[in-house]
């Protein structure tokens, strides 16, 4: 089946009234949750994942809804970035640089409209690329054996540690902890209990919803309670509306940013934060006349477009290889695994309704969000006025209700809290949490492939280096790992970009 035929099949699934409704619910809820100050896309998905799962939605419907949430939260996140100067997620940090000044000048409504359009352009163009690229890539990946997979995953960990935020040693520690946490429970190949310490509850391993709610929702709330963030809401009413020439003036910017966002998003480990930072820096080089940072429309359009393009592009490795490049795609993959579906290149042939239904729903989701956001943004922005003492208790209560609904165990709630407190401390000492999450999701795939490779070779590790692809991946991983030693300045610049103020 060619890409267009498959896409038509996908639309057939995504356009059923039920799935369309789920996409709409996801997009609207995502925008609302994303609009809450300090709550990023990952929290939006994490919060609703347990409910999605316990409602026994079919996997493609659950994924369509979660993807709607993912996009929606991106649209919503820019509301608090632009009006409050609080980015809900590192990918949105660059949005504040020109977005907040625009809001202060009374052009908040125009800024929100432009960022909606930019996100739409970045998202839609990238979905087209995804449609064309996913199958060829998956076809290539089908031929990957266990050795290729092991080396590919090591490569993506290397990329995470070098390109991501934070110190390399801390990222590796985070990856190692994620892998160890995923090993808790009975080992499939031998029936041996690992890291259970005699606890019956841990035999089945750590539940994915428990981990994600603890890691993101609980730790986020503790950070909010600590009260170091704050901000005043800028006016979003009135002011001059967005003019057509302003949008037209931003089109070249958006196209450039889409390209940058796509490339950064396809690579594991870089993701939206680096993409929007790169796009902003590039755009500043090209078009700055001393206006950037003071409310330049192009300075807003570039990171917004790149952010959405990267978000969408990170679906490429997730769908074609089964390897998540970002925290959010890791959650989507984890959701698939909760349905006992093995992600990977075979998804396109074995479960086309999931792969193509999801891709088609991205087209629909982007249009839906644009239609939802342009007229209703004022309504969503009003959510910023809800006092914290109502908002966060509601989020915490919903989190625990979700974990309980998904697991039916009070023990899991204790575990959720413990993970949340540990994650809070990790954030305080600047240990990134996303690598932990990605590693947790990848552990099974990595260990299974490692053991399968060595079964094929009767225990000889040379098999890991025996194929051309595997060798290429190992060499790339080595280069990426050694890069900071060869070019320390390069790494520092990438890191400075992705580590902007406020996150």
């Amino acid at each position: 089946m060619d890409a267009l035929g498959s896409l038509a099949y996908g639309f057939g699934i995504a356009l059923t009234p039920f799935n369309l409704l789920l996409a709409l619910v996801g997009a609207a809820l995502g925008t609302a949750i994303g609009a809450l100050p300090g709550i990023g896309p990952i929290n939006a998905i994490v919060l609703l994942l347990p409910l999605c799962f316990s409602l026994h939605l079919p996997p493609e419907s659950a994924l369509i809804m979660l993807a709607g949430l993912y996009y929606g939260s991106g649209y919503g996140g820019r509301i608090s970035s632009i009006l409050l100067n609080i980015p809900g997620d590192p990918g949105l940090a660059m949005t504040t640089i020109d977005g907040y000044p625009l809001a202060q000048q009374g052009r908040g409504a125009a800024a929100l409209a432009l960022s909606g359009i930019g996100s739409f352009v970045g998202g839609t163009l990238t979905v087209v690329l995804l449609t064309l690229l996913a199958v060829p890539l998956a076809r290539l990946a089908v031929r990957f054996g266990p050795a290729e997979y092991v080396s590919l995953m090591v490569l993506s960990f290397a990329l995470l540690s070098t390109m991501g935020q934070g110190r390399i040693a801390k990222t590796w520690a985070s990856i190692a902890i994620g892998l160890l946490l995923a090993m808790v429970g009975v080992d499939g190949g031998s029936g041996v209990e690992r890291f259970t310490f005699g606890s019956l509850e841990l035999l089945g391993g750590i539940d994915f919803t428990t981990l994600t709610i603890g890691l993101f929702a609980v730790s986020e709330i503790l950070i909010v309670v600590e009260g170091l963030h704050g901000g005043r809401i800028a006016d979003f009413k009135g002011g001059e509306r967005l003019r057509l020439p302003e949008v037209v003036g931003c089109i070249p910017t958006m196209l450039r940013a889409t390209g940058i966002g796509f490339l950064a998003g396809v690579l594991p480990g870089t993701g939206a934060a680096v993409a929007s930072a790169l796009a902003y820096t590039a755009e500043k080089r090209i078009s700055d006349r001393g206006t950037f940072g003071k409310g330049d429309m192009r300075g807003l359009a570039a990171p917004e477009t790149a952010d959405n393009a990267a978000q969408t592009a990170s679906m490429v490795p997730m769908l074609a290889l089964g390897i998540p490049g970002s925290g959010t795609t890791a959650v989507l993959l984890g959701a698939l695994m909760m349905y006992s579906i093995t992600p990977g290149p075979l998804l396109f042939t074995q479960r086309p309704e999931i792969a193509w239904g999801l891709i088609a729903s991205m087209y629909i989701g982007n249009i839906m969000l644009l239609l939802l956001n342009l007229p209703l943004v004022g309504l969503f922005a009003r959510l910023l006025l809800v006092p914290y003492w109502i908002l966060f208790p509601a989020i915490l209560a919903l989190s625990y209700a979700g974990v309980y609904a998904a697991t039916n165990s009070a023990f899991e709630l204790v575990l959720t809290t413990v993970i949340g407190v540990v994650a809070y401390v990790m954030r305080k000492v600047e240990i990134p949490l996303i690598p932990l999450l990605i590693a947790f999701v990848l552990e099974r795939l990595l260990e299974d492939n490692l053991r399968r490779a060595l079964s094929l070779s009767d225990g000889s590790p040379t098999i890991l280096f025996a194929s051309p692809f595997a060798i290429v991946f190992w060499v790339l991983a080595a280069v990426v790992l050694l890069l900071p030693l060869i070019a320390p300045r390069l790494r520092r610049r990438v890191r400075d970009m992705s580590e902007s103020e406020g996150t």
Partner: protein
Amino acid sequence: MAASATFDRIVGAVFLLLGIGAMWHAQGLQVAFAADPLGPKPFPAIVGAALAVAGAALVVRSGRVAWQSGAWVKVAAVAAAAIVYPLLLVPLGFIAATSLLSLVLARALGGGWWQSVVASVILSAAIFAVIDLMLGLPLPRGPMGH
């Protein structure tokens, strides 16, 4: 508070110990049967070693972390409430237990007493209504029974 290297050293030492612990745990596994030549031991040992190395690197070359401490008493109170919450959930039921947890959090976030009490009870009841009654996912009902 000023930036200090102490945090990195402590964190590094913890990672070092955890990594060594993981390797020790992996070595101690009793494997009667394994479907593959590698078995369940080496992978946790490798990952434990990686964690130990990362921890050692943090101890030796510790960076400065600026620990900004805000209202840590409130953080501790909310964390304590969240630890106690699961123990109360089944005996008291979702609405009562969640109201108590939400009350602590609402107070910590600056809500007044009456505001917090009203908000906590209403939102707990609302979430119960949506998840248990509307979506049909059972939450503990406590003394009210089934």
